[in-house]
């Protein structure tokens, strides 16, 4: 077992704790690297450049934790409908678990998340996909985006996708003439010559 308290219940506080740990560790390591380079005689700017990949990783991890935190905060105070809150909680779990699985090295490198926990998270990620599946369309309907804004044959609210795609095809400017001008200008002379 790693130091993290994450288990198969996917408690959001435990998941966030892992994000926070990862961010603090990466910031600490980047700061250590910069300090080490300065101590070895580099200027501050040279040191920053030579630690820049680590610095970006640290800032990225901090932002990732911040985004998860605002999602959790919204869940805890901003959703009064119980069914909606429950569904959104699953989506928040997916956000947190996917972020860990996608960046597993950064969570595991110091053993904070163990390989056993990582295996469990990989499996639970697939479970979450199945849990979200029945609500997928409802989740996107909730964005309340009118068809006029989406302007998509594929994403229409009524789902009449194929009719819309075919209609779009018929309106192609190339279909304004049965025989395109390019045939007369280039294709026919070429074919005659050959």
């Amino acid at each position, binding site marked *: 077992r790693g130091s993290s308290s994450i288990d198969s219940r996917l408690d959001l506080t435990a998941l966030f704790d892992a994000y926070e*740990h990862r961010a*603090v560790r990466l*910031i*600490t390591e980047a*700061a250590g690297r*910069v300090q080490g380079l300065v101590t070895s005689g580099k200027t501050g700017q040279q040191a*920053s450049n030579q630690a*820049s990949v680590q*610095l970006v990783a*640290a*800032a*990225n991890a*901090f*932002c990732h*934790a*911040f*985004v998860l935190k*605002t*999602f959790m*905060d*919204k869940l805890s105070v901003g*959703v009064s*409908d119980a*069914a*909606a809150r429950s*569904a*959104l909680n699953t*989506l*928040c779990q997916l*956000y947190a678990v*996917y972020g860990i699985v*996608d960046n597993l090295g950064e969570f595991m490198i110091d053993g904070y998340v163990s390989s056993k926990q990582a295996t469990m998270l990989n499996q639970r990620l*697939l479970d979450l*996909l199945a849990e*979200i599946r*029945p*609500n*997928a*369309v*409802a*989740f996107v309907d*909730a*964005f*309340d*985006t009118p068809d*006029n*804004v989406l*302007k*998509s*044959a*594929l*994403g229409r*609210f*009524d*789902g*009449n*996708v194929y009719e*819309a*795609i075919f209609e779009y095809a018929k*309106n192609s400017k190339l279909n304004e003439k049965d025989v395109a001008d390019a045939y007369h200008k280039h294709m026919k002379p070429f074919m005659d010559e050959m």
Partner: protein
Amino acid sequence: VNPDLARERKRATFDPIQLTYVLYNGPERVRRKRYLQSLAINDPVIANSPDWHTLSREQKYEEVMRKTVYYTNRVQELGLTDPEEIFSYWEAGMAHENSAFGLHSSMFIPTIEKMGTEEQKQAWIPRSLSYEIIGTYAQTELGHGTFVRGLETTATYDPKSKEFVINSPTLTSTKFWPGALGKTSNYCIVMAQLLTQGQNCGIQAFIVPLRRLDNHQALPGVTVGDIGTKFGYESIDNGFLKLNHVRVPRMNMLMRYAKVLEDGTFIKPDNDKLVYGSMVFIRSVITNDAARSLGQACTIAIRYSAVRRQTEVSPKGEEAQVLDYQTQQHRVFPALATSYALWFAGRYMVDVYLRVTEQIEKGALEELPQLHGLSSGLKAFSSWAASRMLEECRMSCGGHGYSNASGFSKIYVDLTPACTYEGENMVMMLQSARFLLKCFAQAKSGAKLPGLVSCLNRPL
């Protein structure tokens, strides 16, 4: 309604309207949003607009100018003042087409409001609000981007005439990229190195007239034009600007914080970062844009995946909905979760921005570094994530995702510039990291850190 989609809606475990209320801050806001959207959608002046993808660059510029002028008038007629309501109204009629006066209202006017003295606000804000002046904000140069200290444009104070001489001394100092600079704007806020009494006093903001107000022709010493076609943003005349010793009065430097006295003496601002306030606002808004665009991409991918059927899961069975394939779920559901996550983060950031700017107005600058540091990183984080995932949504729709009929291309080319404008993302992340290092050093020396960065007090 397609029967597969109808069945999906019946099987959901919650009523989506409840989440819509959460996303838009309550039933009243949703009702109002829908009302304004229906007004825009059913407006005959806009309803029969041509298919965007069939228009040339020039036609797109003109079409958006037509819509912008029309909607600007309609917004005034309807008496809309709430930014969210105005956005809902505009979006319904010209989604991802970009207002021709977008930078005028989001950068030019707010910069004068935040960085101008009362006298300066009196001089320019009423004329800007009545569209006598249409302005933009020019910081980036041909050879210099996010590193503002490297900008070459100069503003040299002449105490004899009490004027600044604004100059582009090199080819690389040519202002390049600012939106609406090429053909639309007649005024501009130019960020330039202030030189006075033989000293370089750093980057300051100057109001520079570009074009005559009677016939829109470029003023003497001003070379201005459009930079050409781009990946997207085709309706926007991103421009270049060369200034050849253009003289502007002393009052044209925005002097609420930094000042140049008549004799050329420079008075420093309390905080250098105050100069970049307008960019911080836009960065805060970018997270919202990223969330909304990714949400739209998810809407397309998920609805289509519910309708599209492909290959039998069991031999001789019916073709399965693509959404039932685990690989498809693995592609689009994390994007869905991310769009919700960024939505809430974006809302939070705009709230923080409004709170902190209110404090700044009262002279309290303590939270400005935190806002600056966090908004940079979050802008990069959100635009990167949304661009990458939007592309994944597109590809999850197979060949039809490549057609302009899918709607993806219009959203994508509107979203992905956010990775480079208002600060290239890698530089933004490094800026954020520098802020975090400073906080970390404070934490190590025993300081108790406030708010968002308090986690750095945590022992490993």
